[in-house]
């Protein structure tokens, strides 16, 4: 019943786009820098050695690690991290608030009310129907939270 319902979408602003990409780039670069610190301390390798291992130009390695490279490809990250004896992995943290899709909440409420309607008299159904139709998504969230 709920599979065709779509949550509302909101377009990212330009500043938000910059913010999101800067945060992810910072996260990747900080991990690359940390890995580089480790190979420098443990293997005694430098940028030239990483360049020889990975096949990436030495200057490019320097620019990447120093955060001066604009577009960092997945391929470059894979090669560089493997050269630094690390296995790269992308972790996605779920930021979705649980049970907070207004469309689904509304539908859930409608479903549960319709069950109540079928189990009770027609008078109750007649009273309940207009209330369901007038329920806003925000109200649905509130009522879900209250429940």
């Amino acid at each position, binding site marked *: 019943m709920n599979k065709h319902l779509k949550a509302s979408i909101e377009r990212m602003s330009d500043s938000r786009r910059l913010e999101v990409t800067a945060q992810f780039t910072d*996260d990747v670069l900080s991990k690359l820098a*940390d890995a*580089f610190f480790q190979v420098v301390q443990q293997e005694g390798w430098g940028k030239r050695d990483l360049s020889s291992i990975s096949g990436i130009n030495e200057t490019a390695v320097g620019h990447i690690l120093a955060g*001066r490279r604009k577009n960092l490809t997945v391929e470059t990250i894979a090669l560089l991290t493997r050269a630094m004896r690390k296995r790269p992995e992308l972790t996605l*943290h779920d930021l979705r608030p649980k049970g907070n899709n207004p469309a689904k909440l509304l539908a859930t409420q409608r479903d549960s009310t319709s069950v109540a309607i079928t189990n009770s008299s027609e008078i109750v159904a007649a009273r309940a129907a207009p209330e369901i139709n007038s329920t806003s998504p925000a109200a649905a969230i509130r009522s879900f939270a209250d429940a």
Partner: protein
Amino acid sequence: MIQRESALKAAEKSGALVRYKVDLDQGEFEERRLWLRPEIDAVLRSQQLDPRQVQVVRAALRRFVLGANFTVVTADCEYREVEPIGDIRELRGYRPPFIELRFKPPKHDFRVLRRFVGKDSLVLTTYGMKSLTGKTGQKALIVSVERNRCEVAFRAAGLQINWVPPEIKSSVSKARFI
């Protein structure tokens, strides 16, 4: 300890320092504390810097506040290759440690000089630009001058130099030092 906390609160209240707050996502906590001098806060809010660079700065400061891994190049680091790579660079000179944070592209390096006021508690004091290729149009930073300025700013904010941890390694947790 109580004296330091009350001094920091008083500095915030008087406007001598601005606490840097970040928007937390689910599962994130503020594990470190950061204060900016009002002029640095103003630069980050103004149009002086490229919007992309502002976001680069904010992303790094956010990572600091969230207590993520930080790389620190100490003053006695033997490896020249890591100097331009670490998040925090301890500047050479007398103790307590005086440190620099550099934010890279898209244009010139945005440099912020700063000092810890306790473990994982950092105060950004002065800023400037540095370019390898050309003029930045911004004031040049002379570390000795900025160090003195930082001490004046510390006193003006009611903070004491003896609160600064004597070693960089005791200033920040969850960091890799080299």
